[in-house]
């Protein structure tokens, strides 16, 4: 009996979405990013097309973080506190396909920056780089609802991605995105049914299916990576199986998750059983990101330049046809 490769016949594909608007489309971006369109499980070229490789956004914080470990700090030290310079470095030196700007300064428990301050930051970052932007609030629902309309307006026409809409808090961000021509990230807590529900809620408000990115929470290697891994796999299977409300491209936040865990930052003196520190955090971020890639994510939000470079190489290798 001769051997034939068993193939699945999928009935649908992941939706294709373009982020960023060039001048011709009313924006100022010098490059755009297109994700999605996969016709099969991740990188199974014998079975279907993967027309758009996954992309990497480098995360930029709008104020200097505290407590970053040396292996991470040394690459960003001179740009911390200057989001425009940070974004510029991330694109020019580290090859970011996108910037994910996180407005931590807005947090009422911290600096409590105003909506105007945030809008100004966004404009400075838009000026500094030509790649598309993901703009993410501070995580406090009330404050994010206060700043997001101004942030959205500051980037009107640029087709940015605004984050994030949740089951309990989606109206303001959704209305802002609709008004100013942006996309949104719909977030759910590792729950495919809630994800679907948020997607339905925002489309009921008039959001186009093509303007939605899904984010179902991420866990780092050793800290729940398997939950996110399986949710990504299940969502991709649902998309290929024809569920229109789960066919949007998926995003995974890796950098902040991976570097938060002590394996990534605890010194060898504190944790001798884990070996030298210099590469441990990079490996943690790389391992976490690579697992999400195999599970089907489309956008990786990352921190360390070395980890970013490794993932770019891995994506290139996986997107290529198998070598004979």
């Amino acid at each position: 009996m001769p051997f034939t490769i068993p193939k699945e016949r999928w009935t649908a594909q992941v939706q294709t979405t373009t982020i960023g608007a060039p001048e011709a489309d009313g924006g100022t971006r010098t490059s755009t990013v297109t994700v999605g369109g996969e016709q099969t499980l991740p990188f199974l070229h014998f079975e279907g097309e993967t027309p758009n490789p996954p992309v990497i956004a480098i995360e930029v914080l709008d104020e200097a973080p505290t407590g970053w470990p040396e292996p991470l700090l040394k690459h960003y030290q001179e740009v911390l506190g200057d989001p425009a310079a940070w974004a510029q470095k991330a694109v020019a030196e580290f090859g970011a396909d996108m910037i994910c700007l996180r407005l931590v300064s807005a947090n009422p428990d911290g600096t409590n920056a105003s909506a105007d301050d945030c809008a100004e930051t966004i404009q400075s970052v838009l000026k500094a780089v030509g790649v598309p932007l993901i703009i993410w609030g501070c995580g406090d629902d009330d404050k994010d609802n206060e700043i997001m309309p101004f942030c959205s307006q500051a980037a009107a026409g640029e087709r940015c991605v605004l984050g994030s809409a949740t089951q309990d808090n989606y109206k303001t961000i959704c209305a802002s995105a609709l008004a100013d021509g942006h996309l949104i990230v719909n977030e759910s807590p590792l729950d495919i049914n809630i994800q679907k529900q948020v997607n339905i809620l925002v489309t009921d408000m008039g959001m186009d299916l093509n303007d939605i990115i899904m984010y179902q929470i991420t866990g780092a290697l050793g800290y729940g990576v398997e939950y996110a891994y399986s949710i990504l796999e299940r969502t991709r299977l649902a998309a290929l199986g024809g569920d229109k409300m789960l066919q949007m491209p998926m995003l995974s936040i890796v950098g902040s998750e991976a570097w938060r865990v002590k394996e990534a930052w605890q010194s060898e003196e504190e944790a001798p059983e884990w070996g030298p520190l210099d590469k441990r955090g990079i490996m943690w971020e790389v391992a976490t990101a690579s697992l999400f890639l195999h599970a089907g994510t489309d956008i990786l939000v990352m921190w360390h330049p070395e980890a970013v470079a490794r993932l770019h190489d891995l994506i290139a290798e996986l997107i290529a046809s198998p070598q004979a």
Partner: protein
Amino acid sequence: MALTAMDIYKNLPKTNCGDCGVPTCLAFAMKLAQKQASLDECPHITEEAKEALSGSSAPPMKIITIGTGEKALKIGGETVLFRHEETFHHPCGIAIQVNSNLPEDELRQQISTICETEFDRVGMTFRLDLVALVDNDGNLPAAAAVAQQVSSLPLILVSDDPQAVRAALEVCAEDRPLICAADADNFAEMTGLAQEFSCPLAIRGETLEQLYELSEKALEAGVADLILDSSACDSSSVLQDQTTIRRAAIKEKVKPLGFPTIGIAIGDDEIDKVTSGCELIAKYAGIVVTDLLTRDTLLPLITARLNIYTDPQKPIQVESGVYEVGEPDAKSPVLITTNFSLTYYTVEADVSAGHLDAWIVVVDTEGTSVLTAWAAEDFTPEIIAKTIKECGIEDKVDHRIGVLPGGVAVLSGDLEEASGWQIVVGPRESSGIPAFFKPEYTQRIG
């Protein structure tokens, strides 16, 4: 068509004799239905019943044992393509390469280090699984003799040369090493050795088609315990080959591919090898071979394996009690959480991330998260108060202030009454812990 446990049960003796190792015939039928047991384990099964059931009861991927006795490693026996469909059953073996032409004392040293390497995680200890002796200038037999004395782990004999493998097997065959590998050139000799010495055999094909043909031939020749190697050496090929083999085995019941696979974590440097190892772990390898030796590089692989092979239906739990993070003393804060391991370890990681010294009181909620446990009434003021009283925290601190997860703030009043402690409502998300315990914390609870 898969049979249900009831279909299978009808064909069993229904005597509940327990000779199969399971107390009742129904329980045995359930294990058969999940393909976690083999029909041969029932000594009283009739021939007719066997015929009726054998097609559906044989696991689509054979379980292969390498090594013997307590050292033995069991791999394979997988039943699904995606872990959420059921679970992955037998964690892949991590094999460390050792060059057989090392000087004897270095060889001893290296094998001992591999055997002694262990990592503690979520309250369990994890080790490496195999020592892969790589033949070099015919040094395999001498190295096998050393390894047989020193190694507490099963061996893989890596060589294309049947002469070297024969000489090594003469030394260590009783320990049931894996012979690695038979290919198109040495096929007859290697399958002969596997039979003569009753050892499992890895089959290597240059392509999937060749691997299939060689495996079919090995089965015809009577070698029953196989491991498959498709020679893939870039990420894209590894993914394609591993997926194809697993699909063929599980969905199409292709017998020659119904065995665990072996793959090498390849790369130009340590980080690339870790990346490659993660791919093999996630994408179905039965054995991952690597020359990585340092703890910082092995830790991500061991952790990735633990995560991917965690049963999605059975959350890992930590024991109820008091845990220390950092170096807490009688004045350090006390945090309260549940015993779902992910919940506990997230809290622990966030306390560590804030460089705090603290006590964590873990309440047994049968492995559910804070909000789930609260909804299921497993995280009530009475249950929490009982844990506070019984876990010994009152002997460890001289204050009586506990921090409750913000998501269940509603419990704080009743908990104060039930426990006699002052209850402070903490952040909703564990990630808020470092900020919550900024210096003002002391004044806030003042």
